[in-house]
């Protein structure tokens, strides 16, 4: 499968001598198509630097990167033709209306002149700002600005969206609506690269994630790929909901190979195993003995906090 973004040992160094700072230190990242790829890391970890290099606003000091098959050094204009960017700390021409701003940026996106206005109205409707079409941007709230930021990124109908800390500074309701927009765009087939320092946001929107710290990728992959090493280290957890007779079932589960612990509380049995025992538990659920007692068997994924703590500890996947 060809990747939407592929970097090879990407390095970015600011300053020289004693003031040298390695903002990116050998990043190898692969972003598959149609994914929502969360780039998680604390402030100053290199997320913005990585995004600005990928779109051609900065040049890498070393290594290479391809976006949609185009080299970031030689073909940055082609990249910008196909990629929409919502940068951090962006702004608009505040004396102009939302429509005027979008029409201006649309004209620079190579949209045919006769289609610019129609496209601007279309994206304003998509991001829920239709009623503000002719309002001056100076009157916009932070949340509306963020939506308009998304609108300008969508003007060129990009295959890939890069969103740098898109929910920073907006209220929880606005952030939730923003995440809905991202999910909707992903359903339409767009790939999204989204940086954030909010761990919970990754779990809410992303299909894939990477953790970055001090310019290094600690881990990357699907949620399942990222959780597996953590589960192997800390144990595989399952929750079994039961109707009745939970204690007998709990004792039988404890006799299964590799099961370390099984505890009953109310109508829920929590199982911790050394290995993946999902198949054995599923057999119990469908077998004659407990078919009527077991409501569901659910594997419990480690939380994003667990993952981050695990990878931050240096046990890279």
């Amino acid at each position, binding site marked *: 499968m060809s990747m939407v973004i592929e970097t090879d040992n990407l390095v970015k160094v600011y300053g020289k001598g004693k003031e040298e700072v390695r903002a990116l230190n050998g990043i190898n990242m692969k972003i598959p198509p149609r994914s929502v790829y969360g780039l998680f890391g604390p402030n100053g970890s290199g997320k*913005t*630097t990585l995004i*600005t290099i990928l*779109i051609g*606003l*900065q*040049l890498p000091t070393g290594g290479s990167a391809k976006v949609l098959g185009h080299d970031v050094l030689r073909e940055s*204009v*082609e990249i*910008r*033709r196909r*990629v*929409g*960017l919502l*940068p951090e*700390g*962006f*702004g*608009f*021409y*505040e*004396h102009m209306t939302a429509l005027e701003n979008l029409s*201006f*940026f649309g*004209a*620079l*996106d*190579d949209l045919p002149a006769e289609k610019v206005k129609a496209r601007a109205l279309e994206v304003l409707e998509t991001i829920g700002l239709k009623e503000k079409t002719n309002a001056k941007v100076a009157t916009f709230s932070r949340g509306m600005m963020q939506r308009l*930021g998304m609108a*300008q*990124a969508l003007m*060129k109908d990009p295959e890939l969206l890069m969103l740098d800390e898109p929910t920073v500074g907006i209220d929880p309701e606005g952030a939730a609506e923003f995440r809905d927009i991202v999910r909707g765009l992903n359903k339409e087939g767009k790939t999204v690269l989204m940086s954030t320092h909010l761990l919970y946001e990754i779990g809410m929107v992303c299909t894939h994630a990477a953790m970055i710290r001090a310019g290094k990728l600690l881990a990357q992959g699907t949620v399942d790929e990222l959780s597996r090493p953590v589960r192997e280290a800390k144990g595989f957890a399952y929750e079994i909901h039961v109707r009745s007779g939970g204690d007998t079932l709990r004792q039988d589960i404890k006799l299964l190979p590799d099961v370390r612990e099984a505890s009953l509380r109310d109508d829920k049995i929590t199982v911790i195993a050394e290995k993946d025992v999902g198949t054995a538990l599923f057999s119990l659920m469908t077998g004659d003995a407990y078919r009527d007692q077991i409501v569901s068997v659910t594997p419990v994924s480690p939380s994003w906090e667990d993952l981050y703590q695990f990878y931050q500890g240096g046990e890279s996947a």
Partner: protein
Amino acid sequence: MNKSLTIARREFTDAITSKRFWLIGGLFILLYLANVYGVAYVFRMGGGTFGSSRLTLQIGSNVASTLGYMAPLLGMALAFDAISGERERGTLRILLSRPLYREDVLNGKMISAAAVVGLTIVASTLLSVSASILLQGIAVTSDDIVRLGFFIVIAILLAFAYYAISLFVSTFSSKSGYSLTISVGVWIFFAFILPILATFIASAMVPRPALVNVTAPTQGREPGQMFTVTGNYTRRIEAITSTIETISVNSHYSTIADSLFGLRTGAFGQQEVTRLDLAGVISTCWVDLLILVAFPVIFLVASYVVFTRRQEK
């Protein structure tokens, strides 16, 4: 080129609808009104004896003096936040995330600036000169029109020299306030400090001749010899000051404008009329003209180099 024009259209609309532009426009109008009044005053005081050609030169000289201050202000007002302002507002990243080359951004801004500067200087100069001419009923010759046209080009070059300096500072600055301070500082240095500094240096370098009593020639000197002594002194002072002021774009503008309108300040502060035809002006002031052209070109090239190489974090 299309993208440059798209940017230029927006920049032009922004510029001519901005408060800053109308503030400078208001200053232009005030100063030109003063010029019209000044010409009317000169006319009342003895214009009949000057002749219409002399009056046209007076009008031109007044306009040149006004534009000597206003053209740099106009250039700086258009450029000091051209790039740094985009950076501050956060629009630069959005702009540069479009499929364009960085040169397109600068091209667009310069096309717009050329249009605004040209329009402002041509319109205001023509209005002022026409008002004076019509009010005084002066007959304008084709030579006057050619001189005025040439002068407008010189004034636009002066405005563009300051536009280029401000643009250059703006390309590497993240704060428009910083960019404005540097630009205004350069203007104040060239327009006010350097002439004083040059005179001071020249006075220190050339020994002052002994004071001589004009009415009572003594020590065997005739009055004619006394003027020769002071004339030599003044010429040496002028030579040194003009050499020092070579670095000032304002000085080259003034030299051309003075030659164009035939008025220059003499050794004793009097205005001397030394009228040259246009070919004569160009052949006398070709170095000044070259520097006036080179100044904006150098700073515009420097702006391109800095802006296209600068990385936006």
